[in-house]
């Protein structure tokens, strides 16, 4: 397991089906994905390719009629205190065990900032909720209490009273080493302080004030930043951004992407960016996984993939986007549409739309193979410079 040392997430042969009235939707069929510690990986693909389903599988958020039918999601969590790495297969966890991972060790930011924050709670309260749920705030609560006592010491009228407060402070300081379960009142205060800290971390102007506001009082970009703050509140190992900037305007998107780039260095979490926009990938990620119709088709470092795409689908995807500097009459298009996943094509799922398809593509499913160092492709007829 020398390879797993620097991995934080490794998805092997993940298969997820949705059992609907019309038939079994084979949403994921043997997904392979590995995320290195400290890396930012982009997962790209079109609607229905399974990128969001993959994210939901990692958090075990798949609900009936969906079911994870096979494969492994190995999560290598490193204990922040001891530095020990522990391997967990997320697929095998019970829902109760999952609670301690979801939102704590693995966090997610969803696409639509208008619908995800709860409209009836203040921003600060929603971030504080995550903190109280997942963190033992014993120490922080004591610190808040000591701080309050020190405040009152300054305003104290009589020497006897002061002596009493000093005694209390000493008592609490002695408990700092081995904090007991926190008092509800002080835990809430500590969580709120942490929420304000998180808002400051995501570069929110006047975080104290924002924490007291309701989601509708914030603009889209600020709401998205608040959601990022919420996701980062427990120092997760993995942050998943599921189309986190899709609903934002370009100038605001640039702000959020810039923030992610800065935070990446500060928090040391590995980030999984799910998007359909190759520009966003190029801007933020250092490795990319391309998905098509529930399968992984190509995976490589960002530079490598953009310079030398190997899978015909990746090539098609890269040439189909209009570029600002080109004066093309027509765009190169990929013929046909994304297949229906109830009856996916046999063999390689891309073969009906592929210009290079031969008989073997119809009959045999290509496996993900390393064609160049660190560059994995699932194709019988890889293109590009090999």
């Amino acid at each position, binding site marked *: 397991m020398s390879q797993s040392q620097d991995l934080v997430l490794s998805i092997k042969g993940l298969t997820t089906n949705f059992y609907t009235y019309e038939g079994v939707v084979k949403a994921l069929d043997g997904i392979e994905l590995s995320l290195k510690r400290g890396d930012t990986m982009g997962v790209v693909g*079109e*609607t229905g390719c399974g990128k969001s389903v993959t994210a939901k599988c990692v958090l075990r958020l798949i609900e009936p009629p969906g079911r994870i039918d096979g494969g492994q999601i190995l999560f290598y969590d490193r204990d922040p205190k001891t530095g020990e790495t522990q391997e967990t297969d997320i697929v095998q966890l019970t829902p109760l065990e999952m609670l301690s991972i979801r939102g704590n060790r693995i966090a997610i930011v969803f696409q639509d900032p208008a619908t995800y924050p709860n409209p009836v709670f203040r921003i600060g309260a929603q971030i504080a909720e995550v903190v109280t749920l997942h963190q033992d705030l014993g120490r922080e609560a004591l610190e808040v209490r000591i701080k309050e006592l020190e405040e009152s010491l300054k305003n104290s009228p009589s020497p006897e009273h002061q002596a009493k407060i000093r005694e209390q402070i000493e008592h609490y300081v002695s408990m700092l080493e081995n904090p007991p379960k926190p008092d509800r009142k002080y835990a809430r205060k500590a969580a709120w302080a942490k929420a304000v800290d998180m808002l400051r971390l995501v570069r929110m102007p006047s975080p104290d004030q924002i924490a007291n506001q309701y989601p509708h009082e914030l*603009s*889209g*970009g*600020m709401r998205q930043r608040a959601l990022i703050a919420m996701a980062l509140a427990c120092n997760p190992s993995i942050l998943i951004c599921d189309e986190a900037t899709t609903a934002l*305007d*370009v*100038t*605001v*998107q*640039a*702000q959020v*992407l*810039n923030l992610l*780039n800065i935070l990446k260095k500060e928090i040391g979490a590995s980030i999984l960016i799910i998007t*359909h*926009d*190759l*520009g*966003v*990938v*190029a*801007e*933020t*990620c250092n490795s990319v996984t391309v998905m098509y119709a529930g399968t992984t088709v190509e995976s490589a470092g*960002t*530079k490598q993939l*953009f310079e030398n795409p190997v899978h015909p689908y990746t090539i*098609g*995807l*890269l040439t*189909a*986007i*209009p*570029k*600002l*500097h*080109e*004066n*093309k*009459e*027509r*765009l*190169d*298009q*990929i*013929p046909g*549409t*994304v297949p229906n996943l109830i009856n996916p094509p046999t063999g390689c799922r891309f073969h009906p739309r592929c210009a290079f398809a031969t008989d073997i593509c119809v009959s045999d499913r290509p496996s993900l193979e390393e064609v160049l160092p660190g560059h994995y492709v699932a194709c019988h007829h890889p293109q590009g410079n090999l």
Partner: protein
Amino acid sequence: MSDSRVLLSIENLKKYFPLTGGVFRKVIGMVHAVDDVTLDIYRGETIGVVGESGCGKTTLGRTILRLLDATAGKITFMGRDITHVKGSDLRAIRREMQIVFQDPMASLDPRVTIKNSVGEPLLINGVARGPRMRAMVLDLLQKVGLTEDHLNRFPHEFSGGQRQRICIARTLALNPKFVVMDEPTSSTDVSVQAQTLNLMKDLQDEFGLTYMFISHNLSVVKHMSDRLAVMYLGKIVELTPEDIFRKPLHPYTFALVSAVPVPDPRFSGRAVILSGEVPSPINPPTGCRFHPRCIFAQEICSSEEPLLRDMGDGHLVACHFAGELDFGRSAQMEYARAAEAEAS
């Protein structure tokens, strides 16, 4: 206004939406959605309109089509003032001007077959009915790449890209001269988007259409358009026949262009980050509306409103310092330069 090349011209067009409040629904403010826009649209061209959400690009398109009534200003279509036409005159004009909306699922009736959806304009305008309508609808569907089998199906049986094609077929039913495309591809995927854009270009050549292409996606608009108008808070800040990314003269255009992520990792992290967000159009900033976010802003920008000035070759810019500012180079420009160097 006797220029025969002009198909549609708008002068000082304004569209304000009243904001009501209080017990008696009193008007307490105005949303300045479109504020004093002047624009000529030539026959056979595609004019692109870009801007962030809330800049008034959709309202502009709808006001031109008389789907919304203008607050002030004048719309001239084919030499005729259509700002206040009503009744059957308006209906006659609507035959010439059509719109394709963003969400094709929402603009098709889920309980009506494709044949009847596409044929409805023919029926309403008394162009054709019965077997003749069917033949015409089939002809239209074939033009957008659908077949006879699709005639009697319902919208839910189609993919997003196909639905958008159906909507396009329906707009073309009455042989219009002018079509507003309101974010036609923002709900479709990249590969399908390429197909739709190619189809639109083909149809434009075939039917001699004039397009107004509205989108927030700069690359798509640039690909489709001959001329490009950049809107900010209800105003056109720059109108250019040239490559907007090559020679942006307005600081907002430059920031907008540079914020578009470049699909090449070599040029990452070079976006110009604009601070803040688009201000509310209820109380737009005084003077130049961009001045609170502009890094080049001077005193004059907050007091005096810049007018659109011609900087040569029909390149219009509304900025006090147009042509005097040095923006540096954006990632987009570097990317283009590198791509050109590679090509040669």
